[in-house]
């Protein structure tokens, strides 16, 4: 009965239609659109590579791309690193572990909401929570949102704060590392630090890799944080590519130009993923490979 091809396909049909209609078709269409001049109420005109040529000379695009790369370079390693660290600390039989897991996961669940972005604005305001804490320990207040040097950090921290989903995945992986390995290492006199780097990290490289790729994709598309907390400012220092694409496409309805930008973003994400996949041969080890072969 499990071999029943027609029934199986029938059950999978919604997905087949969905992927064709809502993913594949728009995917191809956005590529085509990126070669057109298209302002909603007029029929699109084929303009070849004009959009891309224009992008190459568009200072706003350059600064948005720069800000995005800067954001991803800071926020993604921070989120994944923090997730691994906390998962590592949590990976022991501790009383109250359920509370900690929930506490660490909650911000990831709520983090994308506008309410939390509002909250973040107040936390980093001139007289906000963070500056009050700084003052309490005798430090100078920082113009978090008004200073172009610091504004990026507020959205990086908001992104990092939501490390929960990566943490949960790390936790599952850590629980699969056989404890006998640590016991053996302990007997050989390896320190905790050595155990972490020589046993834990190598054994979970596939999961580190998975989390890095997923967060890379998320990081490049970050929208709610910069849109609400900093509104792209000050002086466009947090004006990420996703904001520019949104405004160009849905405020000025330059759909062709917006499509070209999203394809450049896609290419950059793709390049980063490709580099990661290529490099993974050297640092990702699949312990299950032997099992899979049989």
């Amino acid at each position, binding site marked *: *009965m499990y071999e029943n*091809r*027609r029934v*199986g*396909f029938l*059950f*999978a049909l*919604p*997905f087949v*239609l*969905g*992927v064709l*209609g*809502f*993913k594949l078709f*728009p*995917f191809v*269409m*956005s590529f085509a659109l990126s070669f057109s001049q298209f302002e*909603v109420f007029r029929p699109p005109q084929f303009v070849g590579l004009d959009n891309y040529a224009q992008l190459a000379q568009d200072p706003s695009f350059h600064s948005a791309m720069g800000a995005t790369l800067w954001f991803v370079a800071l926020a993604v390693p921070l989120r994944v690193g923090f997730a691994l660290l906390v998962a590592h*600390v949590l990976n022991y039989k*501790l009383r109250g572990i359920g509370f900690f897991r*929930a*506490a*660490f*996961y*909650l*911000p990831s*669940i*709520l983090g*994308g*909401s*506008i*309410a*939390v972005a509002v*909250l973040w604005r*107040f*936390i980093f305001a*001139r*007289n906000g*929570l963070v500056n009050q*804490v700084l003052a*309490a320990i005798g430090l100078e207040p920082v113009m978090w949102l008004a200073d172009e040097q610091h504004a990026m950090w507020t959205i990086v921290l908001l992104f990092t*704060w939501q490390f929960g989903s990566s943490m*949960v*995945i790390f936790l*599952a992986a850590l629980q699969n590392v056989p404890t006998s390995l640590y016991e053996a290492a302990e007997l050989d006199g390896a320190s905790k630090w050595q155990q972490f780097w020589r046993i834990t990290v190598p054994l979970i490289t*596939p999961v580190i890799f*998975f989390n890095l790729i997923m967060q890379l*994709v998320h990081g490049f*598309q970050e*929208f*709610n944080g910069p*849109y609400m907390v900093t509104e792209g400012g000050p002086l466009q220092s947090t004006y990420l590519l996703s904001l520019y694409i949104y405004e160009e*496409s849905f405020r000025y309805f330059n759909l062709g130009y*917006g499509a070209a930008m*999203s*394809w450049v973003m*896609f290419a950059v994400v793709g390049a980063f*993923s490709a580099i990661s996949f290529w490099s993974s041969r050297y640092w990702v080890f699949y312990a299950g490979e032997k099992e899979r072969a049989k």
Partner: protein
Amino acid sequence: MSSSLDALDPAALQLGRLEAARTRRKAHLQLALRYLILGAVSVLMLYPIVWLVGASFKSNAEIFGSAGFWPSSWNVESYVKGWKTSTEYTFATYFLNSFLIAIPRIVVTVVSCVLVAYAFARFEFWGRKTLFSIMVATMMLPHVILRIPQYLMFREFGWLDSYLPIIVPSAFATDTFFVFMLVQFLRGIPRDMEEAAVIDGCNPLQLLWHVVVPMLKPAIVSVIVFQFIWTMNDFMSPLIYLSTVAKYPVSLALKMSIGATEEVEWASAIAISVVALLPSVAVFFAAQRHFIDSAASSGIKG
């Protein structure tokens, strides 16, 4: 035995005891350190949210006056003002709108994703492997790239300014994360029960309904919770597709109330943020055990 112990050098014995005490102390210290780290991180994680609740009862001046949680007087005025909004509708309308999007969306998501996950996990059919790879690949596809063509499609269908662009795609298992999660979950369930049911003459649909769905329950709860919270949080889709204020969900209404009250009515913006978070927080705590575990099992294990 005891005689040999007595024969031991008392100094050595003392040393042994000291050693044992030291390792014990070290273990205690490590445990304490671990709790210290966890406690500190929990504060960092939760205090902003806790502070928000406290601040919602404070006056405008007090919000920026103290980092403490406790307001000097419990003032519910901000809630009253925030709930009314500066528009002609109250937040009751916006909440209702949010539920009008979330509930149908959850229903179609669960139905379509369970069907598809069942197909992937239990059937052999043409193109299964390719389709599965496509599904995993779409999880890594930046959705930004699909926004513009999808917008044009929905405009062509005449769906703009309605909830259809947000709900209908979910009926076709386009939220592939859920399919992936359910497939992973199904893979962990032995097929014995299903095989027994087949021998008893169950057809695939009966099998799905009477055997598979009950076993999938914890994973389905996770799908519901995730989809509920993500839909409540969703800001971009309503922003693009909805133009009538009467149809706005909470996320858009909240953004609007911030814009309208710039620098004047902080307190009510904070109060209404607390209210906006309530449904998600409630659902999270009601189901957190369930869905933290199934989120974990959707991690790549095999």
